[in-house]
């Protein structure tokens, strides 16, 4: 992943997180605000209901008191206070009086609790309402909730009781309003809100007891658990319910327990508030937040793309410059300006490459001089040996001509033989140098490296076990199915040959020569190891330098030729060595050498004169 991509993704993620956090924060804050608003709304409605409830209660108290104060009721009380009073004449009175006073429930009850007349259950005359005869100051009690037995079953009533006392006898007037859908209908509710009433008249939850202004609530059983909670713990509670999977059907409820005189739960009022508008509003806010997030992301990404491009452009140029330097273009320069850190870095980079170029030129110059010197020394050394016999032979010839003419022919014959031998020797020396200078261009073809290795080993088989020489054991670990590569088999053979020769030279006391091949990612790896005396780190560093040798009679060109061959095939060569343990050469050859300009086979020092002997520099390695 590029630096720009990393930077881009960092910016993007940071942007995404920031925008997401802000959007989520806005949504949460909005949601809380809506919840709070809704809660206040519902509480206001609950308060309104409580106020309405109290007002209704007062109204019921006044109406019942009005009945008690009416002349007819007083006359009834007076009549009933007489001995053997006939109560039957009043059996239907409750019906008419309740209608005129708009009460759903009305009972005239004698002092012993016997019903004289009942509106809600006319046929119940004569039966007792014992709760009325219990000691109670009804006038101070005001209104209260009560479960009322009616002809159609129990009902919930907002009741009040008044008494008319004549002598020592009381006439009780118990009246009230039914709490049901009519009561709910009379409540003024804002749009989107509704009131449900659960009449807790049965031991278990009954869906039919849950009514709204239009009658039994559809799917009322879904509120059973909330009603059960209220029955267990009667207090104001709030909850939400979704009637369908659609969030728009969500409804928030505030439950208000309705308790009787003994604090027994008689009903539950549920103020429902449709969350449709809230959900819609939240959805709009969420959509808006998402749109803002999307737009923020879009523009943020564009900005990030542009910003990262702007920020990383000098870095990319620096990277390209560094790559160019790594590829050998030491004079690469970076065109970055500015006073910022990258600009300073670019200036430093340019200064560094300038210095590198200068130092490289100086180094090359120095190395060239050193190489020339080395070449001169080598040449001088190599040429000096044959030159001395030549000189002495020529001097012998001159001396024999002057001092012993009779022996001159014999001396001449011997001397010319020596001269020819030494000249041949000189030609060989020159040939070796020429051979290195005239490394041929590789002629690529399909090559199986295993076969080349086997060919080289076969070539040296006789020498590995030669008489009078400590044996060398070759070990071949050649991978089966090694892919063929495009290479020059002859040059490859020469390179391996040189490495094998070096290994043999490194093991004068015998040892193990291990050749191993393998392939990885299409490349072929070749390892040639010996168990010789090994090399020092300093020797390893200079090992591939032309004309550098650790041998007495080496030319220092063998490993240089190997490196040249490997390099011409686009491969790499490295060496690992440990003193006293051995040395391993690792060669990695690609399946197909990259196209590149014709390699320069001559090192910086001038190439020696062409040799007539095309023999490779076998055994002239390190």
């Amino acid at each position, binding site marked *: 992943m590029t630096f720009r991509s990393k930077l881009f993704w960092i910016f993007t993620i940071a942007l995404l997180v920031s925008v997401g956090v802000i959007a989520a924060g806005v949504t949460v804050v909005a949601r809380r605000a809506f919840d709070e608003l809704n809660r206040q709304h519902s509480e206001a409605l609950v308060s309104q209901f409580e106020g309405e409830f109290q007002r209704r209660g007062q109204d019921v108290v006044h109406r019942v008191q009005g009945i008690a104060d009416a002349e007819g009721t007083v006359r009834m009380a007076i009549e009933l206070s007489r001995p053997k009073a006939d109560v*039957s004449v009043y059996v239907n009175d409750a019906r008419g009086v309740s209608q005129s006073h708009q009460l759903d429930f009305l009972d005239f009850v004698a002092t012993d609790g016997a019903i004289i007349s009942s509106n809600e259950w006319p*046929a119940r005359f004569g039966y007792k309402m014992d709760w009325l005869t219990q000691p109670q100051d009804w006038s101070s009690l005001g209104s209260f909730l009560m479960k009322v037995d009616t002809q159609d079953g129990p009902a919930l009533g907002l009741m009040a009781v008044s008494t008319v006392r004549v002598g020592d006898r009381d006439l009780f007037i118990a009246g009230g309003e039914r709490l049901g859908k009519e009561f709910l209908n009379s409540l003024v509710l804002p749009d989107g809100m509704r009131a449900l009433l659960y009449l807790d008249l049965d031991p278990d939850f009954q869906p039919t007891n849950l009514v709204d202004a239009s009658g039994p609530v559809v799917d009322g059983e879904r509120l059973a658990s909330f009603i059960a909670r209220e029955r267990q713990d009667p207090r104001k509670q709030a909850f939400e319910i979704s009637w369908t999977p659609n969030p728009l059907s969500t409804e928030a409820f505030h439950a208000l327990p309705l308790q009787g005189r003994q604090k027994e739960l008689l009903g539950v009022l549920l103020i429902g508030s449709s969350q449709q508008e809230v959900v819609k509003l939240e959805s709009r806010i969420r959509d808006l937040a998402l749109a803002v997030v999307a737009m923020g992301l879009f523009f943020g990404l564009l900005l990030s793309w542009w910003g990262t491009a702007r920020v990383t452009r000098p870095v990319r140029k620096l990277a390209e410059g560094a790559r160019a330097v790594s590829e050998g273009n030491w004079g690469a320069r970076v065109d970055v300006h500015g006073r910022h850190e990258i600009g300073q870095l670019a200036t430093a980079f340019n200064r560094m490459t300038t210095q590198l170029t200068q130092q490289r030129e100086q180094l090359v110059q120095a190395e060239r001089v050193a190489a020339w010197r080395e070449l001169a020394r080598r040449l001088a050394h190599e040429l000096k040996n044959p030159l001395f016999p030549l000189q002495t032979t020529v001097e012998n010839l001159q001396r024999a001509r002057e001092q012993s003419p009779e022996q001159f022919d014999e001396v001449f014959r011997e001397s010319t033989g020596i001269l020819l031998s030494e000249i041949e020797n000189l030609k060989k020396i020159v040939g070796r140098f020429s051979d290195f200078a005239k490394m041929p261009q590789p002629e690529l073809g399909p090559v199986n490296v295993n076969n080349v290795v086997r060919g080289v080993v076969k070539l040296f088989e006789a020498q590995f076990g030669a008489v009078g020489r400590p044996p060398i054991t070759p070990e071949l670990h050649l991978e089966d199915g090694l892919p063929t590569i495009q290479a020059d088999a002859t040059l490859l053979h020469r390179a391996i040959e040189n490495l094998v020769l070096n290994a043999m030279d490194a093991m004068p006391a015998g040892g193990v020569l291990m050749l191993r091949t393998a392939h990885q990612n299409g490349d072929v790896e070749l390892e040639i190891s010996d168990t010789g005396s090994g090399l020092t780190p300093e020797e390893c560093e200079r090992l591939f330098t032309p004309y550098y040798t650790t041998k007495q009679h080496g030319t220092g060109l063998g490993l240089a030729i190997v490196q040249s061959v490997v390099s011409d095939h686009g491969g790499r060569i490295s060496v690992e060595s440990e003193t006293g343990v051995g040395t391993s050469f690792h060669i990695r050859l690609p399946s197909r050498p990259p196209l590149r300009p014709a390699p320069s086979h001559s090192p910086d020092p001038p190439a020696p004169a062409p040799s007539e002997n095309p023999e490779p520099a076998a055994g002239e390695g390190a």
Partner: protein
Amino acid sequence: MKLRLCLFLAVISIALLHAGRGETSRRPRYGGTLRVEIGAVLHSLDPAGAPADPDEAAAKNEIDALLYDQRNPDGTFAGVAGSGAFHISEWESGKHVMLAANENIRGGRAFVDSIDIQMGRPAKDRLLDLEGGKSDFAEVPPEEARRAADRGVRVSTSQPEDLVAIVFVGGRAIADDAHAREALARSIDRAAIVDFILQKEGEPAGGLLPQWSNGTAFLFSTAADAPAAKDLWSQIRGSPKIVLGYDSGDLLGQEIAERTAVNARDAGIGLDVAAISNPSTSPLGYDARVTRLRMASSHPREALAGFQAVLAPMAGLDPSPLPAAAAAEQIYERERAIVSSYRVVPLVWLPRVYGLGPRVRDWKAPAAGEGWPFADVWLEQESQ
């Protein structure tokens, strides 16, 4: 002293003259139209047809008893036969019928010239019209009699002759359970029904015949026994319910049924009340129904036979008729047999109550099986 005596004699003479004039005004007077209001709605006076509704049938019988006309098959007047007290002079189906006095009736012409019978008048309106002087005669529901009298209406009450009873219908599981029937019969507080619902116009009924009829009514218990009812009901397996029906237009029947439900509930008996809009509906939606039966005759045997004829098919009773010369013991035993089966649970006896306008004179409540004696009624002339 003489002067005083003369003054005293003069005062006495004037008083006697006034009294004589008043006596003269109480003498029967011919003329006038007797305005009658009834609740029933008649669409035909065809002698061959009988309305299904008991009230309509009763009203038709009353009108029939007044007529001696020839009538068309549709019940309309076809001509004066010459022997009846009244004949139909106007007929408007379902609304009113005008009867005119027959001049040539044997035994003397009726005092009133005509009788205007308005049909379909609710009880409340009938009473208001009586109070307001818009009518002269109307049937008053027994439960309204006391209230009507309190409001100044002249009320005439007959002997108790309508029996209100609960009749268990045959073929229903719970109705065929003797324990259930007896439990319900014992749970009912008849006295409370009479006192409160009927406003003391009536008598608790334990038997099928009233006390005045054969004198054995006192042998039948009318007292409620809730513990016994509870015990009987507890012997029934499961938790059945009795459905007690009443005619949807019968307000009194509804009140009695509802009171019965209260008594039953007090005794632990499961009982639901249901209005019957169409009694002929099959299958029946009720196990028992509140039924009102009118005595066909004041004679015990005939009255019991009449009840038996009505109740036997309904309750699955023994339909065998009583002998023509059945003795009082046989009548009692048959009555006892019916009542002991608890298939018929007598509740109350009701009188027939009539409201009379102030100008109606010489009215006598008819005996059981008799019609309205309008031929004997005369109308006092209204003061100018």
